[in-house]
């Protein structure tokens, strides 16, 4: 178990797919704040009357937005520079963009080799399969550079979802530039993602090649294979509880990796239980009944498999022993929810160290964390999260009749959760209880694992907060959906009435005064572009860091527009009305679109904005907890 190497390299790998929901949420928040600030910017430039009208909120609010707006241009400008510098090669802040033509070739190669090296070092001790795997691996590494540019473009839809906003924007640029310079675009594609990721993961990745790893690998359209281990107590077994351990999760950096499971040993150092990046670090259990090399989990053909690698006390998959003692078993498919047991209790299992390990497997559940992948018809759990959070907060504010009993009623005391001054606890499945009521389910011996008493979903309460910003698309979907739902709900409530009164105002303004809008837009775009020459040079690191989140949110659209305004505007028009409409304005202006489209776009813009202002403030509000209102909701 050369954990030290493995874990060290694991630490270098940024960007994970674990606990994505939170990440999404926070991005949604940052995105809405930035985009609404852009709106506000337009608004301010338009007429102050509109501004007052549309932001019927407080003045503090708008000033807050303005302060945000101030930041936005810097970010977009720096991103712009990154982009251009990538095309024009040298001398930018990120080292990866300096040699774009080489980057697409050398980076993946070297990175592959680093995984390869790690892999072989990990396996140097045993296994015959190593050699073929290695050859397989190296062959794939040989293929990669040539494939990359094409494979980068094909799965864009899925990829963009996975990698989020940064990639989306870039892939748009990618499309446009593809004919010009494939290599350069792939390089730029990699550049912005690695930049924020490094910072974000708070990893000191001195090795840029390793940092490239996930982005290069995620050229695969699919989500990386993930697996989580939860301790499982067999209810049928009235014997002693099995070994307790904190939940462990792994996301494979590449599909050829193998997760080795065995006995924890001090000599190997402490493996990272839940690295926030993809990792194939071995998993160790502190039990004597677990052999040093007990079993391995392999991802193959889209499925997880397990095999016993000659353990002495056996690996059991759903109570079935996989092999004779000290014999290697064949591969068995592992599905979500399966129970794996390592070894059997020894000496009655009286001491913890002699207890077997029972693991409940969750595999490839990351879909749960990606609301974008679900269609509205069949919303799996995490989608509920968004929906229900939204509705919960709406309901909290309005006492609306919408029926989300899981959200409004504490299933433990059957009382309403809408009581003021009562602390609430919301699980990842969006079920809500009074903290007072649910606390004894939280602080159990299983502590970091929380099982929802309503839906029995397990949550790891110690999971890292995922605050990278890597989603856009689902937000668009959300907005669209919210748009739909708003239009359905509109007649009913006061708040919608407000949103109605809110939306027409800017709209009429925009349509009746297209001339007025025209001058403002260049001003706007110039304000976005002017700092780009001076700012990034002067703006210190602090500013960069401070704005990192916004940066990520802002980068793609801006860079897309900057890269190729003429094409980007229409494309984004089709792809994502709400967000791009609000952000693309400078590009579309400079592209000298026809007046007709201009007239169209403000209308869309206001539409999107109405939604943003109506529905999305809930996202920022999430910070402050469902019961803290900014006063905005209360306004009739």
């Amino acid at each position, binding site marked *: 178990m050369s954990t030290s190497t493995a874990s060290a390299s694991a630490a270098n790998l940024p960007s994970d797919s674990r606990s994505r929901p939170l990440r999404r949420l926070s991005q949604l928040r940052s995105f809405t704040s930035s985009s609404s600030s852009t709106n506000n910017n337009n608004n301010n430039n338009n007429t102050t009357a509109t501004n007052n009208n549309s932001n019927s909120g407080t003045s503090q609010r708008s000033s807050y937005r303005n302060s945000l707006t101030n930041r936005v241009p810097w970010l977009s400008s720096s991103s712009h520079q990154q982009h251009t510098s990538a095309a024009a090669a040298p001398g930018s802040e990120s080292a990866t963009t300096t040699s774009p033509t080489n980057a697409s070739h050398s980076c993946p190669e070297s990175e592959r080799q680093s995984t390869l090296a790690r892999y072989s070092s990990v396996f140097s001790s045993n296994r015959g399969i190593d050699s073929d795997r290695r050859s397989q691996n190296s062959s794939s590494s040989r293929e990669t550079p040539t494939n990359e540019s094409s494979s980068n473009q094909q799965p864009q839809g899925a990829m963009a979802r996975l990698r989020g906003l940064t990639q989306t924007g870039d892939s748009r640029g990618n499309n446009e530039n593809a004919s010009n310079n494939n290599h350069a675009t792939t390089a730029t594609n990699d550049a912005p993602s690695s930049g924020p990721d490094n910072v974000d993961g708070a990893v000191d990745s001195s090795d840029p090649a390793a940092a490239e790893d996930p982005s290069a690998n995620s050229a695969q359209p699919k989500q990386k294979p993930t697996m989580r281990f939860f301790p499982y107590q067999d*209810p049928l077994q009235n014997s002693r509880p099995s070994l307790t351990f904190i939940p462990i999760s792994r996301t494979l950096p590449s599909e050829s990796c193998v997760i080795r499971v065995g006995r924890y040993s001090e000599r190997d150092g402490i493996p990272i239980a839940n690295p926030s990046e993809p990792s194939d670090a071995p998993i160790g259990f502190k039990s004597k009944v677990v052999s040093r090399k007990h079993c391995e989990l392999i991802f193959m053909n889209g499925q997880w498999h397990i095999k016993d690698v000659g353990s002495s006390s056996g690996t059991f998959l759903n109570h079935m022993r996989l092999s004779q003692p000290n014999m290697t078993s064949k591969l068995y498919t592992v599905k979500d929810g399966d129970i794996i047991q390592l070894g059997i209790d020894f000496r009655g299992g009286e001491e913890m160290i002699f207890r077997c390990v029972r693991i409940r497997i969750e595999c490839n559940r990351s879909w749960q964390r990606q609301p974008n992948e679900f269609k509205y018809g069949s919303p799996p759990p995490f989608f509920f999260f968004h929906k229900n959070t939204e509705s919960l907060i709406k309901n909290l504010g309005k006492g609306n009749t919408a029926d989300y009993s899981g959200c409004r009623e504490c*299933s*433990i*005391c*059957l*009382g309403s959760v809408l009581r003021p001054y009562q602390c609430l606890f919301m699980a990842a499945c969006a079920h809500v209880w009074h903290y*007072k*009521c649910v606390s*004894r*389910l939280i602080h159990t011996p299983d502590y970091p694992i929380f099982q929802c*008493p*309503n839906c*029995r979903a397990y949550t790891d309460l110690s999971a890292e907060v995922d605050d990278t910003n890597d989603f856009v698309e689902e937000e668009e979907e959300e907005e669209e959906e919210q748009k739909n739902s708003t239009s359905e709900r509109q007649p009913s409530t006061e708040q919608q009435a407000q949103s109605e009164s809110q939306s027409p105002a800017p709209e009429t303004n925009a349509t009746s005064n297209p001339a007025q809008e025209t001058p403002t837009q260049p001003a706007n775009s110039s304000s976005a572009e002017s700092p780009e020459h001076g700012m990034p040079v002067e703006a210190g690191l602090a500013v960069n860091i401070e704005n990192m989140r916004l940066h990520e949110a802002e980068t793609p659209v801006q860079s897309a527009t900057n890269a190729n305004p003429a094409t980007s505007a229409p494309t984004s028009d089709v792809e994502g009305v709400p967000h791009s409409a609000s952000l693309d304005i400078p590009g579309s202006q400079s592209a000298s679109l026809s007046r007709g489209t201009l007239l169209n776009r403000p209308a869309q813009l206001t539409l999107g904005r109405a939604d943003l202002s109506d529905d999305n403030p809930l996202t920022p509000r999430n910070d402050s907890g469902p019961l803290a209102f900014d006063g905005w909701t209360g306004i009739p």
Partner: protein
Amino acid sequence: MGSQKRIAKELAELVDSPPEGIKVELANEADLYDWKVYLNGPESSPFHNGTFLVKLKFPNEYPFKPPAVNFATKIYHPNVTNDDKGSMCLGMLRPDEWKPSSRVVAVLQFARQLLAEPMPDDAVEGRIAEQYKNDRARYEEVARDWTRRYANEKA
């Protein structure tokens, strides 16, 4: 105690709008944790026309622990023990199945459903289950007889 509030709430709901064939009262006005439930045998079952007294006892940890359900009336049923306890085997009452979000209404409705459709595979009375599976007519006859004998007094 948190449980008190919840039990009171559930009781109020059950008394205000009792589900079909179920009547609830407190065994002792001073004790919220002890309920008397009268179940009417479902029409389709041999227990029709019988009224079965079911005792519901809530643990202090309710709703984190399931209530105990016992038939005080003798009943010929594969899922109810034939002793003086009259314990009932309800899947949702098993400690590992129980969810705090489950409600008494659901428990009682489930219990009544069980009268209509016994689950011989989960039986606590193996002999009755056997008979239920192999000799339905005989089972129904005995069940009807028991219902007449034991479950009619309070009707």
